[in-house]
């Protein structure tokens, strides 16, 4: 063998390359089968950003179809529940400029959940059929109720109810849910905001 290599370095090199090619080819082939990616990863990534409210406001029958549409070049500003933050995330993912929410599809609203006025419910099951995520519990001719923790506030159950007993109510804001707002430019609105900034006309100075 050593003799062969020393006598015919060219053939030896050729052989070595061939061997390498075979090894790598086999590894790649094996990897392609073993670690095959199911589905379209970019669609899944987009779908992971969409809020999964499944409300259809974007004009597609759910978030996944809209994710597919975005992957095929649709605008990223059609999802009101995702709002501005969602658009920014999508823009980041797809490396495009963020654009303002298209208000043709609705406006960003505070989070709400459905509430069934239970003594008015006739048990027609229509809302159950409408709820995309099975967040309503009930049976024919029996009172129905919404599982609040699961409800995404998509609004789809309100319309089908024949006796109009479903309300969309804002999620309670206790002290725990309360949050600071981004200040606006009108100082009178900021009366409750205190920071001693603005005292730098006094004798304090920066380090």
């Amino acid at each position, binding site marked *: 063998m050593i003799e062969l290599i020393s006598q015919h370095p060219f053939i030896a090199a050729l052989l070595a390359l061939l061997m390498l090619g075979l090894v790598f080819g086999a590894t790649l082939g094996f990897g392609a089968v073993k670690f095959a990616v199911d589905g379209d990863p970019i669609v899944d990534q987009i779908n*992971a950003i969409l809020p999964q409210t499944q409300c259809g406001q974007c004009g597609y029958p759910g978030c996944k179809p809209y994710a597919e549409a975005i992957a095929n070049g649709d605008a990223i500003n059609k999802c009101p529940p995702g709002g501005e933050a969602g658009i*920014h995330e999508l823009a980041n993912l797809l490396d495009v400029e963020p654009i303002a929410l298209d208000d043709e599809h609705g406006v960003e609203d505070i989070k709400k959940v459905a509430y069934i006025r239970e003594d008015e419910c006739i048990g027609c099951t229509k809302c159950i059929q409408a709820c995309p995520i099975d*967040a309503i519990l009930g049976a024919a001719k029996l009172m129905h109720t919404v599982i609040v923790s699961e409800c995404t506030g998509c609004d789809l159950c309100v319309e089908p109810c024949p006796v109009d007993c479903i309300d969309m109510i804002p999620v309670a804001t206790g002290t725990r849910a309360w*949050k600071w707002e981004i200040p606006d430019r009108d100082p009178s609105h900021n009366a409750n*905001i205190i920071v*001693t900034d603005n005292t730098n006309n006094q004798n304090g100075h920066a*380090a």
Partner: protein
Amino acid sequence: MNKIWDFHGGIHPLENKTQSLTKAIVTAPIAPQLTLPLSQHIGAPAKPIVQVGDQVLKGQCIAEAVGPVSVPLHAPTSGTVIAIEQRTIPHASGLEDNCIVIEANGNDEWRTRNPITDYTQLDKNTLIKIISHAGISGMGGAGFPTSIKLNTRDDIAIDTLILNATECEPYITSDHSLMREYADEIANGVAILAKIIKPTKILFGIEDNKLDVVDGISAALAQHDFAALTGLATEAEVITFPTKYPSGGEKQLIQILTGKEVPSGGLPAQLGIVCQNIGTAVAIHNAVCLDEPLISRITTVTGDAVNQPCNYHVLLGTPVEFLLAQSDYQKNQSARLIMGGPMMGFALANTAVPIVKTTNCILAPTEEELPTPPPAQACIRCGMCAEACPASLLPQQLYWFAQGKELDKLEEHNIADCIECGACSYVCPSNIPLVQYYRASKVDIRQRKVDHQNAELAKERFDARQERLQRLEDEKIAARKARQAAAKLAAEQRGKEDVKNAAVEAAVERVKAKKAKGVQESPAAKESENQANIIATESDDPIARAVAKRAAQLAEDAANPENKLIRAIDSAKQRVSKSQTRVVDAEANNDENLAIFKQAAEKAEAKLASAQQALIDFRAQSSAQE
């Protein structure tokens, strides 16, 4: 002397501390009503264990901790529980939350106390249990339950205990006066802490604007043999360093005293460091050595709108307005009321809110003292904020991203490390309330995480539902196909059916023909049938259709009593064929219910036979009558 380090940035605002230090600590009288919010700490709110009308004694537990991150609550004085309801709490939102309201009876009568004479005999877990039962949460900052902070993991050795006596924020002097008058209690608390976490070094950090207390603290600490307590060569040292805001920030203080930087998103425990506030140390001393839970604290009342600024030893739950009245508060001069200091505090909308575990200061400034912020201008990119930021962040960038709600960018720029100290806002020449942007954005980021989790859940449920609907649809189609096949099979079989059946069928046909004639003769039945048809075409509602069909049948029955029997035969036949299909299916699939199905088929056949018999009988009867 331990070497000291410096941290990046920081500012030197006017200290304004002397006003409240002219007097010794005053014990505030007991307010007639004490309001105790159930959530004065970080974590789950405590759960009330008393009822309205209950008599409580001073120090009695009135609400217990729920879950691991929570602390209990105790009655600050003896009296009657008069309400457990929503009251405005001291919170930036000005919202209400659940509170227990106690009407004091003036006796201030203690529950029985069982002080521990020699805590050195107790082990770590017992001491931590005492601390957690005493309702102690951090008294300097956000109110994190102390017992959790002390319950360090065994795999990370803690070598340094830092006592935070910095009190870097202007105006506040509660810790300063505590050190002046309670040095022994502080030292005792430190000793208990040392016993619990067994550090090799105890560093007591004091800013150099409080040099008057250094000797007292050193002397008090010298009375304890820390080495004996920990079993290590532990030494305690008081370290003073130049005054600079915000040196009291936990990460900043650690850097000053040890030169180590807590990594972004990390905890001091990773570096083997535990930080405690001296107010907490006194509370620990009270809990262990006196069996007194956390029911009072030292609070500074100051600002130009009070005539007698001083520090109060005040019961938790005391209304702010009650305390202000003790200091001769001039309401007409006060511009706003602030709980906490001028840098990190928040404005109070309501003076009835109570003093809580974290209330270190009530500041009542006049308009000249703390003027209303002028309108914010555009950022001029001067970079002063970045120079002042103790966390080495880029506040102007964060401001930019916060305005655009670019949460990803904010996270990339480490907004999580912002301690909300307000140094950036303080130096900003454009008067931009920068911290407000960061506070809002931080909540947005947290909310987004929760939203993503919820979205993930919703997606799972949505997918599960889609799958289920698909499965049901598939099943329906499969069942229909099977039925069709079985019907074909049954039809073939029926070809060989017995003659009797054929005869009956012929009879039925005949009757039907006769009935058709009869129907023509009976206008009432016809009309109702028409009506039913109209209803059926007009309404797609299955219920309306069913009702209409039934009405038509009834009308028909009235016209011709034989109909009913014929229908019975029809439906019995259907049943027979159905049950036969089922038997065939079951035979094909080797179903375990085969026997039952066979039985059912036999029964159906018997029913059919009896229906046919009934018709024959009826006929015979009617012909006999004729």
